C-alpha cells in the first residue's frame, strides 16, 4: 500500500514575508508619492544597469552562457527529488546534518531549536533571501535570540526597522544621508561625528561588526548553490562579511531553498560567469565561499543544512510557471524594470520584488494571496532580455493572469467585448457608437472606474468621423 503524501502545499499564511498588506496598485500609489525614493531608485538602477551592460558586452558567448544556464536549471527541476537526496547523502557523509522543512514554520522551528541547543543568545547572519522569506529573524527574536545582520545593506535595513526593497541591494531605497541618520540613531558605540562619506559609513559598520564576529558562536546563512555531486554549499558575496560568518563561528546553520541545488561542481563554471555580471556588474564575484560538511580543526565544527520547500513544490507542479524556480537571485530584472524603477520594492509586499517577484510570490503563496502582482507589469519584456537564465517572465505573467481571480465588472466587460469582436456586424455598430465618446470630451469627466484612471493624467483620443472599414466600403 502506498502512502498518500498530499498535494504540494503553498507557503502558509501568518509567517514570513511573501504577502503585502495591500494590493499592488494601492501600495504603488504610496511609493510613487515619495520623490526622494524615486530619485534614489532612478540613480541606483541607472548606475547598476550601465555597469552590468558594459561587462556583459565584453563576453562574446553571453547568449550561449544564458542558454547553458537555462538548460542546467531545466535539467535540475526535472530531476529535483534525486538531486536533493544525493545532496543529503553527500552532506551527511561529510559530517553535516540535513533537515527537511516543508514550510516556513517548520524551518523556523528547526533553526530556533538548533540555536537553543547551543545555549547561545545571539547569531550572526549572512544576507539570505530564504531566511527573509520565512521571517526567521522574527522567529528567533520571539525565542529570545538576537539575530545580527552582517551584510552592510541588510544591517542598514535591520537598524532602520525597515524592510528590504531589492534582492541584491536591500537598502537601495536609502541614500547615504539617510544611512548616516540610521547609524547615528541605532548603531551601538557609533562615533557622533560620523559623516555621510561612504568610506566613513563602511568603517563605522566594520568596527561594529568586527566585535560581533569575534564574539558570536553561531551563524545562519542561505546558499546560492548546493552541489549534489559533492555536497558542497556555496555563498557568493561582495563584502567578505559572509566569509567571516562562514569561518569564525562554532556552529553554522544554512537554510537553502530546494531549487538551489545544482547537479555537479562543473555547473558552477556557468553560473559563476552569469551571476556577477548580471547582478553587480562585476567580472568575477569578489568572495565565493564554499564548504563541504565539516573539516576537523578548521571552520565551524557543527554544520546543519535546512532544505526549504515553502511552496516550491507547488510552483514545480505548474508546467509554465515552474521556470520561475530557475532564478539565481541576480536582480537584473529589477534593475531594468520600468515599474520597479518607479515604485521600488516595498510596493510588491514580498521579499521578492520586481518582475521575478511578480511571478514567484503569487505561485509560492497561491494566486489568491497575491492576485494583483501578475498585473504589476506593462509586459514590456525588458526583464526577459536581462535574465541570465532566460526566464520568460512576461509569458509567466500572462499565464498567471489567466489563473487570477477577476473583478466581476471586468469579467462582464471582457465577455461583452469578446462577444462583439466575434460578430463583425455587431462590431461595426459598436464602432459607430464609439463616436458617442465625443460627448465625454477629451478629459472624459464622469467615466466610471477603472477608466477614470486613464483620464486622470491622459486625454482621450477624438473618435474619427468614420471607421476604417466604413471608409474602405465607400472607396
Amino acid at each position: 500500500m502506498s502512502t498518500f503524501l498530499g498535494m504540494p502545499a503553498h507557503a502558509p499564511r501568518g509567517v514570513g514575508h511573501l504577502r503585502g498588506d495591500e494590493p499592488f496598485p494601492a501600495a504603488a500609489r504610496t511609493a510613487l508619492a515619495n520623490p526622494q525614493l524615486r530619485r534614489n531608485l532612478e540613480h541606483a538602477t541607472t548606475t547598476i544597469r550601465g555597469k552590468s551592460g558594459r561587462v556583459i558586452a565584453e563576453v562574446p558567448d553571453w547568449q550561449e552562457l544564458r542558454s547553458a544556464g537555462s538548460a542546467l536549471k531545466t535539467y535540475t527541476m526535472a530531476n529535483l527529488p534525486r538531486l536533493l537526496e544525493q545532496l543529503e547523502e553527500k552532506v551527511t557523509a561529510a559530517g553535516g546534518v540535513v533537515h527537511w522543512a516543508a514550510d516556513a514554520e517548520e524551518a523556523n522551528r528547526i533553526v530556533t531549536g538548533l540555536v537553543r541547543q547551543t545555549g547561545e543568545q545571539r547569531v550572526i547572519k549572512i544576507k539570505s533571501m530564504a531566511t527573509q522569506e520565512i521571517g526567521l529573524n522574527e522567529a528567533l527574536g520571539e525565542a529570545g535570540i538576537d539575530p545580527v545582520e552582517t551584510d552592510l545593506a541588510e544591517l542598514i535595513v535591520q537598524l532602520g526597522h525597515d524592510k528590504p526593497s531589492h534582492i541584491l541591494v536591500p537598502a537601495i531605497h536609502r541614500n547615504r544621508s539617510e544611512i548616516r541618520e540610521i547609524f547615528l540613531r541605532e548603531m551601538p558605540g557609533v562615533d557622533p561625528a560620523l559623516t555621510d562619506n561612504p568610506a566613513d559609513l563602511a568603517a563605522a559598520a566594520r568596527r561594529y561588526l568586527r566585535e560581533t564576529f569575534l564574539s558570536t558562536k553561531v551563524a545562519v546563512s542561505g546558499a546560492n548553490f548546493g552541489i549534489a555531486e559533492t555536497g558542497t554549499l556555496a555563498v557568493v558575496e561582495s563584502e567578505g562579511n559572509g566569509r567571516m560568518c562562514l569561518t569564525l563561528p562554532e556552529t553554522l546553520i544554512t537554510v537553502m531553498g530546494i531549487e538551489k541545488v545544482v547537479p555537479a561542481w562543473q555547473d558552477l563554471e556557468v553560473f559563476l560567469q552569469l551571476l556577477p555580471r548580471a547582478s553587480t556588474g562585476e567580472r568575477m564575484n569578489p568572495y565565493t565561499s564554499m564548504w563541504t560538511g565539516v573539516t576537523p580543526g578548521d571552520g565551524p565544527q557543527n554544520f546543519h543544512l535546512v532544505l526549504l520547500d515553502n511552496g516550491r513544490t507547488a510552483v514545480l507542479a505548474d508546467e509554465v510557471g515552474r521556470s520561475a524556480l530557475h532564478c539565481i537571485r541576480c536582480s537584473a530584472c529589477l534593475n531594468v524594470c520600468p515599474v520597479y524603477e518607479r515604485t521600488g520594492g516595498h510596493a510588491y509586499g514580498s521579499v521578492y520584488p520586481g518582475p521575478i517577484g511578480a511571478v514567484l510570490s503569487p505561485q509560492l503563496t497561491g494566486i489568491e494571496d497575491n492576485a494583483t502582482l501578475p498585473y504589476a507589469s506593462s509586459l514590456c519584456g525588458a526583464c526577459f532580455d536581462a535574465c541570465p537564465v532566460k526566464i520568460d517572465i512576461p509569458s509567466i505573467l500572462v499565464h498567471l493572469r489567466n489563473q487570477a481571480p477577476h473583478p466581476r465588472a471586468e469579467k462582464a466587460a471582457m465577455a461583452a467585448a469578446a462577444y462583439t469582436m466575434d460578430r463583425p456586424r455587431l462590431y461595426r455598430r459598436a464602432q459607430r457608437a464609439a463616436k458617442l465618446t465625443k460627448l465625454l470630451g477629451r478629459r472624459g469627466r464622469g467615466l466610471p472606474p477603472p477608466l477614470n484612471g486613464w483620464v486622470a493624467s491622459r486625454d482621450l483620443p477624438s473618435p474619427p468621423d468614420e471607421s476604417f472599414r466604413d471608409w474602405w466600403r465607400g472607396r
Partner: protein
Amino acid sequence: MRIALFATCLADTMFPAAAKATVHLLERLGHEVVFPVGQTCCGQMHINTGYQGQALPLVRRYVRTFEPCDVVVAPSGSCVGSVRHQHAMVARQAGDEGLAAAAEAVAGRTYELSELLIDVLGVEDVGAYYPHRVTYHPTCHSLRVLRVGDRPQRLLRRVRGLDLVELPAAEQCCGFGGTFSVKNADTSTAMLADKLQHVLETGADVCTAGDASCLMHIGGGLSRLRADVRTVHLAEILASTEVEAAR
C-alpha cells in the same frame, strides 16, 4: 504583390488614418491591398488581461479570416506580436492542436509594417516626403517581441525632408501596457511622465511609432500637457508625399 491588411481593432475604430496610410503606401509601391471584412481583433487584450478562454474565438476568427492570404500586414508591432507569440499558445491551452498548427502557419505570413517593407518587399526608400522634425519611440513589442531592430529608423532616414532626432532612453516603455494603463494608472502615469519629458527634450514637432496604442498613450499625455508635439503613426509618415504636404 497581393497583400491582406489586418487593420487592428484600435486603428480601425479610433485611428483609421494609420490603416488608410498603410493602404496608400502599399498601393503607391505598386501592390494590391485587400481587406478581408471578417476581421476584428487579434484578442491580445483578452489574453494579456487573463481571459484566454474568451480570446479563443478571436484567435479562431483571425486564423480563418487570413488563412487564404499569402501575406498579411498590420500597422502594429503589438498585434503582430500577439499573433506570432500567443495565438498558437491560446489554441494549445484549449486543446485545439489543429487550430494551433493553422495559427502558426498564418503567423508565419503575418508581418508588422516595417518588417514587410524591408524583409518582404525589399524597400527602404519608399519615396516619402515629410518636412518635419521627428523623434521615433520604439514600442516594446516591436522591439522585444518582434525584434524589428532599426528597420523603422532605416525607413525614416530615407524620407525626404525629415529630420530624425534621437529620443533619450528610447527603449524604456511608455507605460501603456494595455489594461495596465488603467489597472495600475498611477505607475503607468509615472512611466509616461518620463517618456513625455524625453520627447519634449528632443524639440521634435512629431513623435512617431509603429503602434497606435502607444501613440494614443503618449498623445493623450502630450495633449493633457498642452504640448506642441503631435503623435503620428509611422505608416502616415511613410505614406506622405509632396502632394499631401502641399495641401
